């Protein structure tokens, strides 16, 4: 039922190589061997760079708190210029913002197979000491176990609200981004398929992106989004932004004085939507309607990312000729 990507790739590689030897000319065989080699190299990287033993471990309290945050903590994501997609970039930026807010240094490393290295199949993931943790939720808990937390000052009702708003962003904004990337035919053909498989040679790039598209479409069907049109999805995005804008009001952050993980998550998604150039501008127009949200993004960018010129500049460059927020 749950097909594991690396297993599928191995199967494909075996089938391709057998078929090639039986039926095809030498040029095609060598091309396919290159494909197979690329696959093997990618799998080899998986073996080298992750620490297998710690993949399924959950951080334990006392032994974790004992270790301070190391200097060489690394965050892995896909290649910024050519490969990364809207939703993954948003998630990655959210984690980077969160770690900046906690004052924890982290290097951003781009790898083509980051998705396959991750313990949960989703980017970004961080490699700290000998622990590997992926996605914002577990990363927040991991950082909390290390003794850093942004939401300690909130009371119970505020914590409930924060969790509810984070679910709102995940439920509506992230799903809308996934819908736009994988279920809108124009975007899929012109942006997603070329970008997603770009590090790999043909036919692996097409196979991987079709497989991912099939997976995402199945998920959309299960949650009832498959029947929605693009206009309805944009309507939902508008509703979500309206709600966020109302909640933010005129405050600097969602919970007044200090930023929390909710601010990081919202910043990640909204900034990415605002600075990514898609086929049409409709998605970013929906966000631009709310001036306090754009001001919020600008404020966080200036406060937490200006110092790292490299990061913000590459964010701008990846967004293909669109300047930073003015």
């Amino acid at each position, binding site marked *: 039922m*749950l097909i594991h990507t690396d297993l599928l790739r191995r199967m494909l590689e075996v089938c391709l190589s057998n078929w090639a030897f039986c039926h095809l000319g030498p040029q095609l065989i060598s091309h396919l061997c290159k494909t197979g080699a690329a696959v093997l190299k990618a799998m080899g990287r998986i073996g080298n760079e992750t620490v297998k033993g710690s993949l399924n471990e959950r951080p334990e309290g006392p032994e974790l708190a004992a270790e301070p945050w190391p200097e060489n903590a690394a965050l892995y994501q896909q290649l910024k210029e050519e490969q990364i997609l809207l939703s993954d970039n948003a998630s990655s930026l959210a984690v980077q913002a969160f770690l900046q807010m906690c004052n924890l240094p982290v290097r951003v490393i781009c790898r083509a197979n980051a998705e396959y290295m991750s313990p949960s199949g989703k980017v970004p993931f961080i490699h700290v000491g000998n622990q590997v943790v992926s996605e914002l939720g577990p990363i927040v808990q991991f950082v909390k176990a290390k003794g850093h937390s942004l939401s300690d000052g909130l009371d119970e*009702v505020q914590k409930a609200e924060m969790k509810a708003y984070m679910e*709102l962003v995940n439920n509506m904004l992230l799903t809308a981004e996934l819908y736009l990337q994988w279920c809108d035919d124009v975007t899929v053909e012109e942006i997603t398929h070329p970008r997603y498989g770009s590090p790999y040679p043909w036919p692996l790039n097409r196979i991987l992106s079709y497989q991912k598209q099939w997976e995402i479409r199945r998920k959309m069907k299960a949650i009832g989004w498959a029947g929605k049109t693009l206009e309805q999805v944009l309507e939902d995005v508008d509703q979500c932004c*309206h709600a966020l804008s*109302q909640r933010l*009001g005129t405050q600097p952050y969602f919970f007044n004085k200090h930023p929390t993980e909710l601010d990081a998550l919202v910043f990640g998604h909204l900034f990415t939507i605002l600075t990514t150039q898609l086929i049409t501008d409709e998605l970013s127009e929906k966000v631009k309607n709310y001036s306090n949200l754009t001001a919020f993004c600008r404020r966080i960018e200036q406060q937490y990312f200006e110092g790292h010129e490299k990061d913000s500049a590459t964010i701008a460059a990846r967004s293909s000729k669109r300047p930073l927020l003015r």
Partner: protein
Amino acid sequence: MAAPMELSCWEGGWGLPSLHPESLTVMAYAKFSGAPVTVNSVNNSWRTLKGDLPVLVSEDIVISQPAKILNFLRKQKYNADYDLSAKQGADTLAYIALLEEKLLPALLHTFWIEAENYCSVTKPWFASRFAFPLSLYLPGKMSREALNRILLTKGGPPLYSLTEVEAQIYRDAKECLNLLSKRLGTSQFFFGNMPTTLDAFVFGFLAPIYKVCFPRVHLQEHLKQLPNLCRFCDDILTRYFRLTVSSHSPAGQDTADANLQKLTQLVNKESNLIEKMDDNLRKSPQHPPRKLTTLKLAAGGEESSPTSRLSP
């Protein structure tokens, strides 16, 4: 606004007007906002095959999802959120997202996937509500859809087996219930004294967990440890649903009950009469039957006919 609106949804049981969370949500919202909606329990129309319930039909317009139905009712000026501030409206949306992400998977699991619950409660109940061929096919289909949904949304690595996914979703659901309880606190509804959309959604999700008697009930037990949520469900049931059950409920049910009661009373009286007659006859057979009219029993005119029939 004066157009009659008809809502088709699943039937109810165990003291609830419906067992389906979305149907309950829409019914609760209709009650809160005072919309004149007649509720129609559907059991064998083709709509159940598509799984599209609840459905609102108003003149020629057919609307099918809860969010759209609520929007339609609001446009018809039946708005339960009238007094809410903008921030509270935003909170509503956020909490609804929380319910759908954290509580709904556990609800689906308790009803449709947990083997004991499904085989002993859910499947017989749903199967008994459908006509013959649908009753074999539809519960299985709904169960497969629920499993699919849970596995696709929650079942990715590092959770590789169904038991790990189950553990995770029940943990999430318990956390969600705790958060709701903290948010409700001691107030009567989530935003003060008047119920709103959020109350309708929370009621729709909580009431089935609270009321339906399942063999495997750890979520229900957890809910029962949160007294303010239980009080919330009971309040809404007594204030908004008992009233309509007595006034214009599915009329057939009530009159049938009333008729049954009257019939039982009649039969009892008849048998008492017959016993007394037997005694009298044994004691003094020459006594005229007229004497039976002296036997005054509680009710009124029904007596005259049995006695007149018995008199030779």
